[in-house]
């Protein structure tokens, strides 16, 4: 069977398309902000919109009332969309997030609303962020148009630790975040802050934890993904996945682990293993994200899964930090690291036999 690259070959295009300078390529970056009730999500978002870096943001909320759009900022509105100052637009997900996002893209294309540069989704209260992340995890839905740049969870230092104790949704928000922003540190007891930080670190050892006071935070925290952490064990030349310190399983049966491998992997091995995993245990794969060193590819191949859905893989121009190594983060429920490792090993053995 002829491939596109046979008809129209290119030294700069790999099996996953044009090699990208950054993962989102030409897609619209999306920031998802979740947070505990009263943690100060809205203050953080409003502060961001008011800064020059917030220019050209399309804000998606459940209800206008929640974000408290200032009358002075309001320029024009329809039932579902309002224009804000600063080239921003705000719309509600009254019907459905996908419908709202499609509407934004169509209106942007037609010049009806400003040509926004990013989408910021503020989820309501203690929502499970899973379904929102899932929206962007497949090209069948919106993955071809949008790219989930960063998922941020806001927790307040005063009540955060207690919230984590009683709320499974809060724990899931913390576990699935790329970045955790701790607010109200100015009015919290030092011991409460310590307790919250320790609890967050335990739940999500890989996320960046930063603090904010009265919504004042570096705008980049809402627009840029944390740099992938590097380093770790050094077993140059070893075959198969390397061992990394095992992590304890949290309450709710949710745990996370990292698979690392120094040697390139056949794409078929990865794809087939993930096919088995997603078909048998899709709902327990809360999030899988990382860089793959794929045989025949120059750059790292970025892969992302949310449950049974896969974001289209993209190849980047170069390896972050110059370190060539497969590094996959799994956040799973009742699915132990060993089972995943064994499955990769088994598929690999069968594939190469």
């Amino acid at each position, binding site marked *: 069977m002829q491939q596109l690259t046979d008809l129209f070959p*290119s030294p700069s295009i790999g099996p996953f398309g044009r090699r990208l300078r950054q993962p989102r390529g*030409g897609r619209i970056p999306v920031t998802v902000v979740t947070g505990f009730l009263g943690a100060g999500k809205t203050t953080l978002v409003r502060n961001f919109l008011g800064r020059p870096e917030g220019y050209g943001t399309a804000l998606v909320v459940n209800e206008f009332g929640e974000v408290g759009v200032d009358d002075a900022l309001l320029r*024009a509105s*329809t039932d579902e969309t309002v*224009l804000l100052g600063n080239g921003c637009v705000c719309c509600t997900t009254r019907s459905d997030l996908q419908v709202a996002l499609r509407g934004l893209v169509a209106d942007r294309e037609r010049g*009806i609303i400003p*040509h926004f540069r990013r989408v910021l989704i503020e989820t309501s209260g203690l929502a499970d962020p899973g379904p929102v992340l899932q929206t962007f995890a497949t090209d069948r839905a919106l993955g071809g148009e949008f790219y989930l740049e960063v998922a941020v969870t806001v927790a307040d230092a005063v009540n955060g630790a207690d919230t984590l104790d009683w709320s499974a949704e809060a724990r899931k928000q913390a576990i699935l975040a790329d970045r955790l922003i701790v607010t109200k540190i100015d009015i919290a007891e030092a011991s409460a802050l310590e307790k919250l930080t320790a609890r967050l670190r335990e739940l999500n050892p890989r996320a960046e934890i930063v603090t904010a006071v009265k919504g004042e935070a570096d705008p980049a925290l809402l627009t840029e993904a944390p740099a992938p952490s590097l380093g770790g064990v050094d077993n140059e030349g070893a075959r198969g996945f390397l061992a990394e310190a095992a992590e304890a399983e949290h309450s709710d049966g949710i745990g996370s682990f990292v698979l690392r491998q120094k040697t390139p992997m056949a794409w078929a091995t990865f794809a087939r293993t993930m096919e088995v995993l997603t078909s048998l245990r899709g709902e327990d794969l809360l999030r899988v994200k990382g860089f793959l060193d794929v045989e025949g590819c120059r750059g790292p191949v970025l892969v992302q899964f949310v449950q049974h859905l896969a974001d289209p893989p993209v190849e980047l121009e170069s390896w972050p930090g110059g370190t060539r190594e497969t590094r996959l983060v799994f956040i799973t429920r009742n699915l132990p690291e060993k089972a995943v490792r064994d499955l990769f090993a088994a598929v690999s053995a069968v594939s190469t036999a």
Partner: protein
Amino acid sequence: MSANDQSPLASGANESIEWNFKLIGHHELGGFGGMGEGMAVQVAPDGRRIIWLAHESAPKNFTGVDVSDPRNPKMVVQTALPHNNVRSNSLELTGNILAVAYQTKQHGQTPAGFELFDVSKPEEPKSISFFDCSGPKSRGVHQLWFADGEYVHMAAGAADFIPNNDLDDQCYRIIDVRNPSKPEEVGRWWLPGTRQGDNVPPPVRHQKPLPDMGFRAHNTNVYPQRPDRAYLGYLDGGMLILDISNKAQPQLISRWDHSPPYSGFTHTLVPFFNRNLLIMTDESTVDRAADWPKLVWVLDNRDETNPIPIATCPMPPVDTWGNRGGRFGAHNLHENTPSPHCWYSEDVIVGTFFNGGLRAYDLSNPYQPKEIAAFVPPAPPLSRAGAIQLNDLFIDERKIVYTVDRIIGGLYILEMGF
């Protein structure tokens, strides 16, 4: 009724767009910021990086801008034309030699031809020679290509070129400039039937409502990968590939003419050699998109004797963009000009679309080009178009993008973010 009229959010339509391009510099060129379609980057003997820019029309001839620091562009020289009946809308550079095209308003006027300048000292361009193309039915040179330091390929009239129709007055001419002080013509090609005395009938002219724009050469690109091929846009004649292995007698290899039903003015033809593709534009030449659609076409060129159109690059909807002011539609492309100071890309197309601004397309899948970046600045102050009219672009090997406004806005300098 346009979409704008229907929406209470209509004010958004006139906001500027900076999507995956970042504006880092802007120069209004001393108030003479109506720019043509000649742009070339030189690294001068003293190490400064100069971009040479052709003007859309008189009174200015060409302008050099020091873009060593693209955030702080400095105009170093701006030259004047002898009178207002001539324009120099095209230029190219090899090494330190700048070739500038002169086209007059009327047949028989002068100067009609091209001039070579030594720009080793950018502040002091020195004329080396002038090649005269004037004649009773000639307006001189509209566009030229000068990439190998040896030959100028151009769309030009000639003293002895008498067309059957006055609109067909510029053919493809090849000029040997290996001795730059004494340029000599070595070959010529024209669409059969356009010159008086041809033994075939003249081409059928475009009938109303299509505009009759003329069967004449526009871009005449030749690349080192195939020095035996010339890639021509031939306005109402469509696109052409010529065999120029014998420059004295160019031979037609293939021609794709989509008009009618399209409205001609085929402008640029860029081959992507590795990818067996051709990228072609039709220029929009009428305000308010009256000649829509003017497109960027992708052609399958696996068999150069039979190029097949397989896609066009998506443009924003004409109902909201057509009335924004001035022209809306395709024009120039980044042409992978063979120069050490030019970015080379066969997987991304970047082009200018007048009020549609500057747009970039991912060509990973040539059947489905996908827009990945756009730059549409606000209307420049005092622009009679009332909207930006981005005319041409050049991307240097540092991936810095230069683009110019056709009316008054001057030079915009951008970084690519995709």
